[in-house]
Structure formats: structure tokens, C-alpha cells
């Protein structure tokens, strides 16, 4: 995003979206342009405050360039001169319904997902379902990991494992000191999957425990009581440091 504000007089790219002429500066994505133009494109894994990820594929649109039309995620696709974009065709609606059905296969009980499904006309339950032990409300959008890394600066949780075992967890599935218990991940989770719980022991990879009753999140449990010599919150938040922090 920084390039937006440092360069002067950026090149304006002209393109068409849903039959309308539009012009935005080079580097703008289709989703950004659509939002500014008031065109609704549904999203799940998108949040303006963090980097784009393109995981959920709900924001797919049809782009036509050099005579070829294909479906692509609008959140990651940069506008190009002469691009044609369609945001609401039968093909797109079919694709979005498929996306939601597949998400429902893993997260059949996620209330917010039902809202999206209703809006798209998806019949529930969907056609598929994962084994019950693989089902939970996490749609692997990665928003929690991104806010933790980019906004909070703690980077306490991230993706691990592969395939059906993919999950966002703290390292080695063990509680970590890096988590500061701020619950920002809880606020951005689109399916309300993340919760915070009081736990009464603290288990970390070296398997020690503490008698302290501390608050921590279900995934990561490292809210250390802030003590002297603790990390300055500025270091965690990246505020006012301009990359000049001491390690």
C-alpha cells in the first residue's frame, strides 16, 4: 500500500466493470475498484487492515483480457488497461455457490456462513460433508494469522499442517508466550470460531507449568503478565519505531 502515497501522479488505468467505464490508478485491485464504485462483491477472507490473501475465492469475478475470459479472485487481481470485468453472471454465481458449499462441507454449523449461503441461494445442507472429526467452524481464511502478524505484531499463530489437517495454530500446537491475549483475532474471525478461554495451567513446549491463572486464547495461551523489562508494546505494534527498533 505504501507505493500509493509516495509516487506522484500515478498512471490511471481505464477499464470496464459491469459495462461501466472506470479509471483507477495502477496497482488498484478489481475488488478495491468495485468497492469504491459501490459494486457489491461478497468476501470472507478480505479485510482492509491486513494484506490480501485470496483464500476463500468467494470474490471471484470474470475478467476478459486479450480475448480470454476466466474466473479470478477480485481481491488479488490488479486492474489492467482495457480489462473487462463482470461481477455478477450466472457462471460467477455458480462458482460462488460452489465455494460456499465446499466451505459448508467443513463448517456446516458456522452461522455467518449460512448468511452468505442464503444470500447466494445455496441449499443447505450442501452436497458434501467432511468426516465429522474434520469439521469445525474454521474456514482457513487466515485473517487471524494476518492480524496477529501485521497489526498486533505478535505473529503467535499461523497455518500448519496440510490438507484436511490444515489449521491455524500456535507453534507445535502448544501455547506460546508470543500471544498477548489481545483477542484481535477473535474480532476478525468471520465465522466466530475463535474464542478466548480461561485456562488454569500454562503448558509450553518445554512442558513447564505455572500456577498463575492467566487469560489466554484457545489457540495460543501466552499472555504474560506484563512485567518489568517486558516488550514495549510499541515494539509489538510497530508504532513509532520506523524499523529502528533494537532486537
Amino acid at each position, binding site marked *: *500500500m*505504501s507505493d*500509493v*502515497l*509516495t509516487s506522484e501522479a*500515478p498512471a490511471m488505468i481505464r477499464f470496464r466493470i459491469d459495462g461501466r467505464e472506470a479509471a*483507477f*490508478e495502477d*496497482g*488498484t*485491485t478489481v475488488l*478495491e*475498484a468495485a*468497492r*469504491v*464504485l*459501490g459494486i457489491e462483491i461478497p468476501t470472507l477472507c478480505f*479485510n*482492509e*487492515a491486513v494484506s490480501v490473501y485470496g483464500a476463500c475465492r468467494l470474490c471471484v469475478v470474470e475478467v476478459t483480457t486479450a480475448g480470454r475470459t476466466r474466473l479470478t479472485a477480485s481481491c488479488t487481481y490488479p486492474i489492467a488497461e482495457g480489462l473487462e470485468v463482470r461481477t455478477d453472471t450466472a457462471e460467477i454465481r455458480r462458482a460462488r455457490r460452489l465455494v460456499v458449499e465446499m466451505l459448508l462441507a467443513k463448517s456446516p454449523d458456522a452461522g455467518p456462513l449460512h448468511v452468505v449461503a442464503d444470500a447466494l441461494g445455496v441449499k443447505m445442507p450442501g452436497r458434501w460433508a467432511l468426516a465429522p472429526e474434520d469439521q469445525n467452524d474454521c474456514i482457513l481464511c487466515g485473517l487471524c494469522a494476518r*492480524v496477529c502478524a501485521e*497489526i498486533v505484531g505478535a505473529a*503467535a499463530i499461523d497455518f500448519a499442517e496440510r490438507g484436511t489437517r490444515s489449521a491455524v495454530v500456535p*507453534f*507445535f500446537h*502448544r501455547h*506460546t*508466550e*508470543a500471544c498477548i491475549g489481545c483477542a*484481535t483475532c477473535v*474480532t*476478525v474471525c468471520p465465522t466466530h470460531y475463535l474464542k478466548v478461554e480461561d485456562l488454569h495451567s500454562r503448558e*509450553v*513446549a*518445554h*512442558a*513447564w*507449568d*505455572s500456577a498463575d491463572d492467566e487469560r489466554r486464547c484457545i489457540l495460543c495461551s501466552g499472555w*504474560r503478565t*506484563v*512485567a*518489568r*523489562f*517486558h*516488550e*514495549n*508494546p*510499541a*515494539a509489538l*505494534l*510497530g*508504532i*513509532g*519505531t*520506523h524499523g*529502528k*527498533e*533494537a*532486537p
Partner: protein
Amino acid sequence: MNGSSTGVPPYCGPDPSGQPAFEPARSGVETGRSARVGVLLCVCGPEMRKRLDFDALASFASSLDAVGHVETHPAWCLRPGLRRLRQIVAEKGIERLVVAGCSYRTHRQIFATALERCGLNPYLFEIANLKEQCAAVHPEGAMARAMDQMAMAVAQVAALEPLEPIFVRSEPRALVIGGSLSGLVAAETLAGAGIDTILVEQADVLGGRAGGSRERWPGADFGDEIDERAAAARSNSLITIHLSSKLVRVAGGPGQFVVTVQTPGGETAVRVGAIVLATGSRPAPPGGVYGHDGKRVRTQEEFMELLRGKARVPETPLSIVMIQCVGSRDANRPYCSRVCCLYAVQNAIEARKKWPDTQVAILFRDLEMSCLTERDVKHALEAGVTFHRYDPASPPEIQGQRVSVVDTLLGRRVEILFDLLVLSVGRIPGEGTAGAARVLNIDTDAYGFVPEPVVRLRPQEHAGRGIYVTGSAHWPASPEEATYQAFEMASRAAMALQRGWLSTRPIVATVDESRCLGCGLCASMCGFAAISVVQTDKGRKATVQTILCKGCGTCTAGCPVFAIRSAFYGDAQIAPAIHAAVTP
């Protein structure tokens, strides 16, 4: 508690390199009615569109004192919005910003960065949450709240003062606690980087030969290396060594620790910028297991005494049996101490070289291969060492002169006559670790070692900023590992100290000495020991150690005479907000 007794107070102020962190706010920044506040209304959610009348909000905003420009946009935080913001700043002479949009917590950074890039001070900015904290939750009455919250944000922003990151000088000196291998390497590295280093060792010798323990390093030449390093440290003019000494007190914070060391000559306090903890590990006490007597049944360390000729036995042993995992990996001490297999194999090879007619057998549960290598095992096998694997369910038993063990690889019981039994007991934290951790106020794990905050994936950090833990104080490490760890940690400390300063965000408390009575109530309230009362030439006054201040404002609200100011959340900013909130 404060380090006032040791001289010049730390430098606090603008960037000592002379370059501002960003362009300073344009000259003539005014507060109050004439402040030029821009109000950006963000129409970015279905509830906002439904429940808020943005035309009315915009015209209301325009009517507010100090507002110079009002504009509505569907997505201020996206690229096109930020570009428009830049235009507005350039064209309309806006110096402060209120975004009437969503969450301060998630979106603050986007706008703060944008303001900086436009040459504005990022602390002259507030977000009024009209989304999650208004439109989304108020089916009725959202407009009234929105208008008030916007007016409050404008009033607050108009009263804000520009803030810049605070730079605090860091003391170009380091303290290394522990004079064994990792401590010596750390001190050497720091001194090599031109950093004055103080090395504190609680024994009366360097090199980890703490009084009472007859530890030797595995590998015949290693002892020489330690001696060389110790000699180099002694002759290094940048390294000051205190033997029979320990750390007793620490005050201050990163870059400006004041450490008090107790030496045979008394206590001495000194300012340091970084602290390296290198208190190492030591063998666990065998406690009589397997009939340990230090003669016929020895620990590996006691065995090395024999190998190096420091101890004698009446006759050369003809059969040596080593047992691994003694007292380790059980309910009492569940962890593996990592280095015992390495030590055992190296000692076994050395024994076979020294006494070619002596049998050496190693009874192991598993071979820990992160310190030990396959090549070592191969050399051991070539040297004639035999290995037998046992299961913890049926551990080796001593029957008179024999060791009896079920070899799981052979699938049968094996009996070995021995005249020397060598036990690989596990390792526990060095003697100085507990005390040092207490003084430094850092956590230890259940076994007394000092972990890093994000285990295994960020080993170079420590939860105590400015405090570095290296070597076996952190977790049992082989000599090679301890060396590299010490090198790395000391390098990081050196980098930080060579930079010469630390920065911290400016949302901190400051004391107005002209009002301060020196009553100390603030110091009693601070959870971070960041404010304390010191003697000045104007009498006793409270003073804030900026690098420690978290900006919570508890002291500010508790001061009996309003002598403390909280930046950003000051009385001067909150009072107008309260007024705007409830005045019709």
C-alpha cells in the same frame, strides 16, 4: 529503584542522528478552534448505509469548529481512498484527521502510515467508530450517537499535540552473567565489537569449573580451548572480569539497565545497555542411584577425571559399562538432556584409545542425534565400543559385578562384567540461573531453564527486552551449540548497542517538576516501575523512565496535584471530548 545515583540521566529527545523520523508537522500547527481538521466519512457497511444519513453527518461535521474539510467516500482505507486523502492534504491544507469509520484498533496503522507519508504527524489523528460501535449495534438512535462521537473525535483531535517517537540513548556496555564457555564467547564477541563488557562469575575460576563439581568438557582438547578463551578474556582490555561475584539487583530497562554486582570488594553499580545470561547447566546429582560412589560407579564427569589423568585408580579398568538416561526421561525429570549421548560416545572413544585392552559398552534407550552425529557413532563402533539398547520398562540391573540388561536389538538378556560403571545423569540448570532469573525478573520453566518467548522458532528473542539468554542456561547445549548461540546472542546485543539508541512510542507520561511535590504516590501505582522519585536540585521530584513507561496513565489520574501529563490521552484532549459528548 531508579538509577539516579549513577550519574547523567539518559538522553531523551528527538532522533540523535539529526534526521526526523518523518517530516515534522507543518509549521504553525494550531490547536483549538483554528486547527485544521479533516473529517473523512467512510460509508463502508450495509448497516452504515441503512442507519446513518451521511449527508446529514457531513453537513454536521462541516458545522463543527476547527473542521477545515469534510468528505465522504466508500472506502477511505483502500488504495483509491488513500490517494484521495493525499490529494486533500495537499490541496486543502489539512493538518489533522478524523476518520468517521470503523475500528481504531484494526485500522489505525493504515491511516497513521498514510499521514506520515503525507508529511503530517500521525498522532494528530483519531477514528470515530461509526461502524462496529454504532451502526452495527444501534437499530435505533444510531444517528444521534454518530454525530456526537464524530464531534467528540473532532474536539479531541483539535486539542492534540504533535508527538514524535522518543529516542533514548542506550549505554554502550554489556553485562555477561556466567564465565563458562558461552559466557566467554559472548564476552569475546561483544568486546570484539568494541563494547565494554563486564563478566560476572560466581565461582573463583573461569571456565565452568565451579567449586565442588569436577566437571570436565568432553573431547580431549576441549579443556585447552576453554583455558585459551579464559586467558584471552583476561587479557582483553574491554572485558572486566569479576570472580566470586554475582548480580544482586537490576533497575531500569533496556538500553539503560543499572546493575548492581556483589564482588569480594563490595557492591558496585554500573549502567549497561544489555545483559547476557550464560549461567549454563550442570549434571544432576546422582543421588546414590546404581550405587553411585564416585569410584566404582561414577558420573560421566567423574569418569572424565580418570580419562584426563586428574584422578587415579589402583588398576586400569578392564570393563567399563556406561548407562544412559539415568534419572532422566522418567516421571521425575521427563526431559532429555541432549548432550549425555554425545559425552558418553566421546568418552567411550577416548577410553578405548587410552586403554586399548579395555571393553567399553554403552547401554542406551535411544541415541540423541542432535548433538551426537552418525560419524561419531561409527567411530565409536570402529573403536570397538559396543552398544546395547534397553527398554525403560526393564532397565539395567546391577547384580554384584555384573550389569544385566535385556538388549531389545538382540532380543535377549545380556550380562556384562564390569569394574567401572559410568552413569549419564541428566543436566539441570547452572547454580546461578535461578538467582539471576529472579533478579532479572524473567520466567524460568518448570525445570529452571530460561526459555525464549516463542519456543524454538524465535530463539534469539527474549521476553526481557535487552536480555539475551544463551547456551545451556537456555536448554542443555553441546559445546559447539553453546559457542554458536553465544556468538549469535552477543552479536545481536552488540548490534543493538552499537546503534546507540532505542526508540519508543511517545504515548508516555511526563512529570511537570514545577508542580510535583515528590510525594511518591505515582511510584506506588506504577505497574512497571517506570516512575520514581529522585533527588534533584529542586528537591525530590518524580521522574519517568521513558523506555519503561507504557502510557497507561494510572499515575496521571492518581497524582494529587495534576503534575503528570499523559501524551495523547491528556486532560486537555479528554475534557473537550466529554464536553462534546453530552452538550446538546
